[in-house]
């Protein structure tokens, strides 16, 4: 299970901060503007790594969900990892879409184009938004984890189908993909290096955010567990106390002691 000590997380955070700062300097100041697109092309150095990070995050979600479902590797930690990664993935998918729009407006003349890659990313955003909504529904932790893991795999299976079908759709109807945001093979040297650096910097950021998010999830889960243990202990205590006080003639009138007890009163007989 991935878990970093606190100093390591802080060091990673610092490293990320420096890397992102250097990236900003490189991308905004050092690298020359693109011959065709001019300054607008500088958005590539955040847009492309954000998209990479989103896909990486969803991949991590799928792998940890599978590890949770596989009986031999089942550990609550995988569930926390899956949930944390999906959350970061959704944030960066959203960021990718916004940055793509900002890039598209000056270059394509439109905020949104029905390009295959854009549509796929948008569907991905909603897929995992639904997954996060499912995770937020309160339930028994084990039940919730299993449910979420299956939902994550259902969503992940869909990703290649969405991509494939949308790609196909747009190539059959060749209209919109004239402006391809793809990297050309003949990309200029300094641009390529900056982009590579950007991807590394964003991956560091992912590592830092994940470390923090998993720590948070672990703490919150720990608190829930403690509350549950306390509730169980209280229930056990209330039971033994009652038998001491009561004479052992069971009957209809004995429910009285329980009525004032909020835990018991809230329980009801049904699920």
């Amino acid at each position, binding site marked *: 299970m991935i878990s970093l000590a606190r100093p390591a997380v802080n060091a990673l955070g610092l490293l990320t901060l420096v890397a992102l700062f250097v990236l900003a300097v490189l991308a905004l100041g050092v690298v020359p503007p693109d011959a065709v697109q001019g300054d607008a092309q500088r958005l590539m150095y955040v847009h492309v790594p954000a998209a990479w990070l989103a896909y990486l995050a969803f991949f991590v979600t799928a792998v940890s969900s599978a590890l949770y479902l596989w009986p031999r590797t089942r550990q609550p930690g995988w569930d926390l990892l899956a949930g944390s990664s999906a959350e970061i993935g959704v944030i960066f998918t959203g960021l990718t879409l916004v940055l793509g729009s900002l890039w598209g407006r000056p270059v394509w003349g439109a905020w949104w184009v029905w390009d295959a890659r854009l549509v796929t990313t948008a569907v991905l955003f909603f897929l995992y938004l639904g997954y996060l909504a499912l995770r937020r529904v309160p339930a*028994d932790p084990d039940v919730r984890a299993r449910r979420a893991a299956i939902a994550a795999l259902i969503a992940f299976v869909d990703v290649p189908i969405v991509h494939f079908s949308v790609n196909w759709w747009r190539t059959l109807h060749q209209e919109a993909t004239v402006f391809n945001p793809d990297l050309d093979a003949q990309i200029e040297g300094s641009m390529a290096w900056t982009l590579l650096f950007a991807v590394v910097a964003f991956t560091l950021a992912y590592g830092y955010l994940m470390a923090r998010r998993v720590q948070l999830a672990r703490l919150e889960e720990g608190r829930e567990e403690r509350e549950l243990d306390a509730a*169980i202990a209280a229930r056990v205590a*209330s039971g033994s106390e*009652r038998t001491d006080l009561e004479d052992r003639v*069971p009957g209809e009138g004995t429910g009285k002691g329980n009525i004032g007890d909020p835990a018991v009163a809230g329980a009801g*007989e049904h699920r």
Partner: protein
Amino acid sequence: MRLRAAVCLLGRFPALAGTDLDVHEREVLLLSGPNGAGKTTLLRLLAGLVRLRSGKAEVLGVDLARDRRSHRRRLGFMGHDTLCYDDLTVRENLRFATRSAGATAATADDVLTRVGLEEQADVAHQRLSAGQCRRLSLAVALSRSPDLLLLDEPHAGLDPAGRSMLDSVISEAPSAGTTVIVASHETERVRSLADREVRIVGGRAERAVLERPSVDSAPSAEGGP
């Protein structure tokens, strides 16, 4: 069957908190105790309908922590609800229950007569009265000739004829090889049928209140299957 320190959650509430319970083969066990004590959850746990959070539970030779499903076809469960579909008739509901459990449709008709619903066989479930619903519930539980019969407040809402029918079902069960566990507030009535009574309080089983030497059950109080 045997429970050790069983803990079950209903959502985030510990309905069962460290329950210990042994049940002998072919006995009639009464579970008494106040509302909210965990009787219903205990029966649902034995039926494999709720997950065991910690502890051990073994029912009909099956470890519930590992497998909550394979003992179900040997089980009759009568809960608060009928587990039936409003738009189907009594007979259709019962036939679906028996056939899905692998029994024949003829069994369904036998059981219908036994619980006294043969006149209502073609009435839609949504038109049944509360008492008729209880009879249907019992019929569903009996329809698969269970080894273990779990009854949750079975007398509630039944008329006198229905009650005596139910009493005879309970008292005849052991001789047919069936173990019966009844959760009930009608303690006086069920006590006369039961071999043993266990009180459930605050999610735990207290010691047995009533022990009756039974012909069929093992002599030791805490032994059992």
